[in-house]
């Protein structure tokens, strides 16, 4: 079986898979026990499986594990924890921006990538960034409030983090 060395949440993890085309999503969930990213459609239409690859929000259901290479993968578990949440996660908690929460992985990961790139994103930019992320419970309004809250809370430190991200990519 082909084996891949992946950089996941700052650690190098080795995984053996039966099929090089196996999407990263299944590797994360089944081989690495990182079930934060969810299977929603397998078609890149809903965003529930979103992770960061090289700092960009990507649909892990469409990414063959063989294509990941040495690129840095961050999952929602690597973003923050209940005890030490990322500012976006903290804002989602403050706004209680989840009902069933099945889509919320994608909402958090897409928003975190947006704010890392555009620390002063407007509501319109937030809506545009999340346009491909679906929510069935109708939590969109809260999610928008959470992203705006996170933006206001992050302020300068995010720019710092974005700069660090850019530095580590170089």
């Amino acid at each position, binding site marked *: 079986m082909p084996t891949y060395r992946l950089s996941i949440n700052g650690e190098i993890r080795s995984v053996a898979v039966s099929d090089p085309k196996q999407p990263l999503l299944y590797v994360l969930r089944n081989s690495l026990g990182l079930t934060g990213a969810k299977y929603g459609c397998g078609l890149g239409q*809903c965003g529930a499986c979103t992770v960061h690859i090289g700092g960009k929000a990507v649909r892990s259901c469409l990414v063959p594990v063989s294509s990941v290479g040495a690129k840095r993968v961050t999952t929602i578990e690597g973003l923050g924890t209940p005890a030490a949440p990322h500012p976006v996660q903290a804002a989602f908690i403050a706004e*209680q921006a989840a009902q069933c929460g099945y889509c919320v992985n994608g909402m958090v990961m897409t928003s975190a990538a947006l704010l890392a790139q555009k620390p002063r994103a407007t509501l319109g930019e937030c809506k545009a960034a999340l346009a491909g992320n679906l929510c069935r419970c109708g939590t969109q309004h809260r999610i928008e409030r959470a992203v705006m809250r996170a933006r206001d809370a992050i302020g300068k430190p995010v720019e710092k983090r974005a700069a660090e991200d850019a530095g580590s990519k170089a």
Partner: protein
Amino acid sequence: MSAVAKGGGALSRREFLKASGAAAGVMVIGAAISSRALAQQRSGADAALGKTLDANEVDGFFAVHADGSVTLFSGKVDLGTGLRIAIPQMAAEELGIDVARIRIVEGDTGLTPDQGATAGSTGIMRGGVQIRQAAATAREALIGIAAQRLGRPAAELEAVNGEVRPKAGGAGVGFGKLIGDKRFGLKLDAKAPLRDPSGYTVVGKPIQRPDVAAKVTGQHVYMQDFSVPGMLHGRVIRPSSVGAKLVSVDEASIRGIGNARVVRINDFVGVVADDEWDAIRAARALKTTWTKEENLVGDEGVREWMRRGPFEADETLMKRGDARAALAAGKRLKATYYWPVQSHASMGPSCAVADLRDGKAMVWSASQATHRLRGIVARLMQLPTDVVRVVYLDGAGCYGMNGHDDAAADAALLSRATGRPVRVQWMREDEHAWDPKGPPQLLDMEGALTADGRIWAWKTEMFLPRATASLPNVPLLGPAAAGIAQPMGISTGLISQNGNPPYAAQNVEVIVHWLKDAPLRPSNIRAPGKVANCFAVESFTDELAAAAGRDPVEFRLQGLSDARGIEVLKRSVALLGWQPRPSPAANGKGVATGRGMAYMHYKNNETYVAVAMEVEVDRGSGTIRVKRLACAHDCGLVINADAVRAQIEGNLLQTLSRTLHEETKFDRSAVSSRDWSSYPILTFPEVPEMLIDVVDRPKEPPLGAGEAAATPVPAALANAVFDACGVRLRTAPFTRERVKAAMVAMATENKRKA
């Protein structure tokens, strides 16, 4: 294959056994917890196996532990709705204990009383109220025990902060010392006094839900994330046409895909593999041939089919005065409204894990009705009910019965066939194509006005698929294909309610023609029937108001006598800054702006809600844009102010989605809406500004917030579109094509008149 623990790392078998005893859905309120800790708490819950499940017993619902903490066993489950905090709030208030000291176990047939399905917006108003009464009974019992212990009259004592203490002050005794780990042995006392709402300290507060922090950090264990040791992954192959028979299976076609193998039981065909991706690949690769069936009416044929029947019965739901005579005598208005077949369209395809070994069945499911599912699994698998246990775990929101129960039956069939625990997760197209659907509705409306512009006569004639009497479940796909006998028929929920106008009218008749069948296998979908009924009733009310040349709000208020209804109606339009005038507005060309509203007294005796909105209609493209969406809502006593708001927001946006976009398309053989591009739902750029006003009535009983606010949305939107451009939309969804077609039809009609 090892069990995978959340947060990385495999658990040893010993650790796993310790952790997974049963994995009941346990939550500690007020504490963010890692899933490993969660798993350990689950094993704690299993220690209570063997307890009474009697909903008439205090011990059915509560266990007080030696440390003074409390476990609450709830038959109602949290479907993302906030019951997980709201019900403990009700219990904490009555018991007199910090809500953080209560942990809740939900929907575990081994541990929780059967409180019925979590459906019909009854979680709080029935389930919570029942638990509140158990808590009041328990509190009185604790005071009684303390009275003996302290040698003081019970009347001088109170239960506060987890202890019973003298009202006058002085040392108290903790609940744990009074009864810790012992049974109450008490029936629920319907007369146990409830606390005075004016003194509430927990109920009504917007306490944060305990699961949100875990959900937004990827730590929450969903049904889809759950695994057990030795588990296989299964996928079921559905036929290419509904009702088709399996002709052949080419098992060789999946050779070489891991250890995938085929399970065939009559027309039921599935694959199982150790690895989930192998199971998916095998399901895709497996060559099957099916008979070609053409038994469906097709989405285009539904309306005609609904008028044609076959019918089961006619029923008169309301008769006041003589509507037919009154309508025949005067100038009458007629209109027909249609609501299409819709999918629950859950974000996460349905999933279940089943373990049928040693003559027993253990099933983990996101079913809304684990107790009902237990009986179904027992019957289908020919097992005694007492060896079947179904444990609820959170799935993706379902809003009625989606594929959760089907997935459980699939998993049970595959587990029995393989002798291994099996996890089945449906794929996206399985969920869209095969979840039981919200049924279509057709309503013929007729009305007439008095000379001074009031409602004189009203007739609603509904065409609805009728639920099969006493049907315990929607027939499940897997067992049907496997040839296992189960009660056939259909189930749709209470879909004929609210077909009547909530306004004064001398002559009213509401009748329903019950259809024997439905175009696709139906089930209940959020606010069953009442979304469409309110669409017709409240749109038609606007049509009458326009015919009378009256402002739609004034027209409604003149016929409304219920003070709580009047309150929400006025508040909803106040949020928008409504200026009274008849509809439609005098708008020019291009983009037109309008406002509309609708009102609902849910089930005629529950929550009051009114929705008002402001829209823009682009006459050129037919695009409707909702700019502001306002809602005033009175569900009596509010248990958790923020959770109620979240439910209102969700109802509004989800129903906006259903109204603007959603219709399940199907031809004579199968559903063609199989993904999010062929079944689009609301997206972020379409989300309007929202204005919500919650009326709290602490002295009134708590009513549901999970459905009511959904119902006025389509009519409010149709009325706003009419106000904007004079076009009356009577068929959902309000797609661009439909708006444009209605615009053309109006222009033609105007030309003909001119």
